[in-house]
């Protein structure tokens, strides 16, 4: 039986990846923090529905993904003044992600391909876990990720004649 304390312990090692994944969707560190907080509490509320036979990481990242979507929609409904390269990113020792490079790399991909790239690289999920989060077969994960890499590889080749 998964109790509250187990939940906190299981979540602890996922938080850095959760921050990166949420940030890749929301682009703002502050919004990403909000989404992770929301997902942590939502997961706690839904703990009784968690099936221990399934991977915890995939279960929780599915919740986080929905929280990011909610946060993104809320931010669009109530836009705030945009500050270039979110001021919250300017923290000592904090690397600023090259979002332009990411956008340039992924702009020609469909949403479903982009999502798989995010789950693989930012959330560091395995193919089986991505399949669980998106409710698609593992083979589809493999082929979509391959397609995404091919597109990115082609773009990189265009840039370096």
């Amino acid at each position, binding site marked *: 039986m998964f109790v509250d304390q187990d939940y906190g312990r299981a979540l602890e090692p996922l938080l850095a990846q959760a921050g990166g994944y949420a940030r890749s969707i929301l682009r703002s560190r502050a919004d990403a923090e909000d989404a992770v907080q929301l997902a942590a509490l939502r997961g706690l509320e839904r703990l009784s529905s968690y099936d221990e036979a399934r991977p915890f990481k995939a279960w929780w990242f599915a919740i986080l993904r929905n929280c990011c979507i909610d946060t993104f929609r809320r931010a669009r409904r109530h836009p705030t003044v945009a500050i270039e390269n979110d001021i919250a990113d300017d923290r000592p020792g904090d690397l600023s992600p090259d979002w332009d490079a990411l956008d340039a790399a992924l702009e020609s991909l469909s949403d479903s391909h982009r999502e798989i790239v995010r789950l693989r*690289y930012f959330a560091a999920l395995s193919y089986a876990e991505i399949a669980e989060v998106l409710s698609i077969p593992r083979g589809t994960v493999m082929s979509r990720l391959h397609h995404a890499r*091919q597109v*990115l590889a082609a773009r*990189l080749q265009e840039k370096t004649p």
Partner: protein
Amino acid sequence: MNDWDPAELSALLDGELDSARTEKVEALIAADPGVRAEFERLAQADRRLRTIAEAALFRPEVRWPEAAPVPRPAQAGFVLGFAFILLAWAVGKLAPTMTASIVVNGASLVLLLAWLAPFALREARSGQHSLISTTGGPN
């Protein structure tokens, strides 16, 4: 060697192939310059994405809910003991009718509290939340 899926090149990069498939695909990469070039292209894309993703990593603080305080048995015992001493003192000082009235009312109150206690405990344990800052995990 036609019994392979080009997407296995990506799966190899991700360490998602079993040992038998890993051996086959690695042999193919070694034997075929075209496949090797494609694998290198994919590896380059992989490195680029990893660099961007690593820069985005950060660890958010999570504020866990604080569970409502649960009454401690030791405190309850202390209160009951004190009530008993007070009652014993009152019995010696008051008129018999007043004493009987206090005993009856006291017993009723104890019974009522005993009936309510399980509900209160359940409610307290379900955690009526006010947020506090902590990193360890939910209480």
